[in-house]
């Protein structure tokens, strides 16, 4: 039951830096078990970027927190494997995971205002991140922080290093956040909605920055977003998640040129495009994401899928297998190939 598209996506650079295999993250609650992530597998190589796309509640943030080991002890039931440079993080001693955190894997959060401590200076927070993993004098760490701030494009870093987060603009804060994440040269960088809280013009700058830095550091990047527009610029591969599972996974080119899953179509439809007129109406996906306690039978997307009725009962009774449809392009959908091609070419693409 392994659907790792290894052979197609690993373009020959040895083992991927991050491998996730059959990851399950379940939260037992009084109302039942919340299956936030169910049977998820993917991998990212050094120097590559994986975009994970989905609505809120699709499990993408839970996935990133699981990789980082940030779930509260005892609260989540995690199974499967998370291999970081070959070492399995699932079940590893928490203290060991802590020592990897911030050093070999780092994270950039969505809202830099709330994600930075309001009472400490930006510099202090970067210094703190650096000194957890590097035994250096405060002055050395401070110098490093100033360098980092300069590197992420903060003007006048020598004085800004002593500013508090609230004294920075939104974009500056995110740059500082990135500087903090990069303080120990992490090999894996997870960016969870890094631009959502920012102005559109600033978004592009931040994305550019991440791309530049990735090339500079040669790190593996996981970019989590609900916005396909963000990954369009950055990702080598894209994984679309729905209700805790992957529903489509391929190269970015594939996903944009010939998406095969109705949910991906929906996402594409609601994507604002920089190269088109803003006046065009977005086409959001109808309905709401399903409850993760009672995931619908059959295809979890069936209540919202316009094409669910096209295969008799199949979409309502049987969960579609996540399978390779050629060239490493994986989808989980019951629609026959011709139908998918037909619908994409005739109904969807012209409207985008």
């Amino acid at each position, binding site marked *: 039951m392994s659907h790792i598209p290894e052979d197609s996506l690993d373009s020959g650079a040895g083992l991927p830096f991050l491998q996730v295999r059959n990851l399950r993250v379940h939260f037992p609650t009084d109302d039942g078990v919340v299956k936030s992530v169910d049977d998820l597998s993917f991998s990212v190589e050094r120097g590559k970027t994986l975009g994970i796309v989905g609505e809120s509640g699709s499990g993408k943030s839970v996935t990133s927190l699981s990789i*980082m080991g*940030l779930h509260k002890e005892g609260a989540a039931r995690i199974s499967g494997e998370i291999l970081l440079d070959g070492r399995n993080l699932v079940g590893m001693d928490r203290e060991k995971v*802590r*020592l*990897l*955190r*911030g*050093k070999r894997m*780092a*994270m950039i*959060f969505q*809202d830099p205002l*709330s*994600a*930075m*401590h*309001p*009472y400490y*200076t930006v510099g202090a927070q970067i210094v*703190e*991140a650096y000194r*957890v*993993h590097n035994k250096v004098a405060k002055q050395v760490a401070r110098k490093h922080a100033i360098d980092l701030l300069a590197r992420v494009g903060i003007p006048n870093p020598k004085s800004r290093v002593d500013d*508090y987060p*609230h004294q920075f603009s939104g974009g500056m804060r995110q740059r500082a956040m990135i500087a*903090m994440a990069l303080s120990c040269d992490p090999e894996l960088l997870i960016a969870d909605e890094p631009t959502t809280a920012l102005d559109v013009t600033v978004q592009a700058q931040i994305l550019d920055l991440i791309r530049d830095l990735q090339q500079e550091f040669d790190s593996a990047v996981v970019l989590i977003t609900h916005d396909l527009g963000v990954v369009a610029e950055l990702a080598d591969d894209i994984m679309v998640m729905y209700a805790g599972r992957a529903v489509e996974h391929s190269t970015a080119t594939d996903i944009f040129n010939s998406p095969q899953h109705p949910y991906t179509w929906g996402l594409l439809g609601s994507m604002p495009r920089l190269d088109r007129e803003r006046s065009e109406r977005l086409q959001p996906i109808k309905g709401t994401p399903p409850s993760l306690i009672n995931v619908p039978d059959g295809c979890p997307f069936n209540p919202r899928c316009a094409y669910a009725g096209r295969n008799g009962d199949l979409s309502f009774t049987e969960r579609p297998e996540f399978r390779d449809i050629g060239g490493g392009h994986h989808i989980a959908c019951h629609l026959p190939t011709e139908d998918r091609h037909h619908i994409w070419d005739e109904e969807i693409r012209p409207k985008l």
Partner: protein
Amino acid sequence: MPATVIAYIIRRLFAAIVLLFVVSAVTFSIFFVTPKLLGATPETLATRYVGRTSTPDTIRATAEKLGFYDPVVVQYWNWVKGIFVGADYDYGPAVEHCPAPCLGYSFRTNQPVWPDLLDRIPVTLSLAVGAAVLWLLAGLAVGTLSALRKGTIFDRVAMGVSLAGVSLPIFFTGLLSLSVFSYNLGWTAVGGAYTPFLENPGEWAYNLLLPWITLALLFSAQYARLTRAGMLETMNEDFIRTARAKGLPERTVVVRHGLRGALTPILTIFGLDVGLLLGGAILTESAFSLQGLGKYAIEGILNYDLPKVMGVTILAAFFVVVANLIVDLLYAVVDPRVRK
């Protein structure tokens, strides 16, 4: 920035002085106007201060001496004047000058109020500060542990005990602890014992230990609950996740990031509590027979001793105002967002 801070402090102090006037005027009015509404005359007021076999002449002489025949506004003015320029006091064979700040003389004991207050401030200060340190430490520790172990037996027991702590009357806990720890076990000092800090710090602490604990018990319960609520909220903040993502040890996350964030609202209440207590911890001082401002206030109230009451009132108001100011300034130290 320091210039603006200084201007701010000056502005606040000015407001404080106005407030002290208002507070003193209101206290003064309550003392005189309320009985007047019920039909009291200067003589009926003076009757409070004379012996039970007094004659009308005695009463008139007393009313005269205490200045009750003057309009209330004039009496108040005389009192205020005393603070700035001092006052003269006729104690029989000679007249004594009471230097500024003269808060008047006790109606009962003829003792000038200001030296009395100065004499009692250290007692109340010792009590309040010692107890405050204890309750802050205990409250923060218990509250933090409770928050981190939310729902465990520790949490439930701690919160149950603190609920009891909040509801227990200090008179009861004070007398009970005195009887057990001082009289039965002989571990702690007896009620009323007080040694000035500068005279013997060890004895000072030993004598005040029981009052501290009793008073701190009441407050630490409240602070434990506050801390717990604050920590529960703070530990869910995004910046805590960030701190963990950096790979910080959990203790650093809890103390440096969590507690620091939860501290601000507690600090506000702490400042006000200490300010209020400095005006006199009436119940604790009474239970432990400590001759502090609270006890002085009670004496004043029970004996209709207006100058005493006025003295403690404005001193207490002053402490509250200053505590407020310090809290506001500390706020800026603790939370950089407040500095502008």
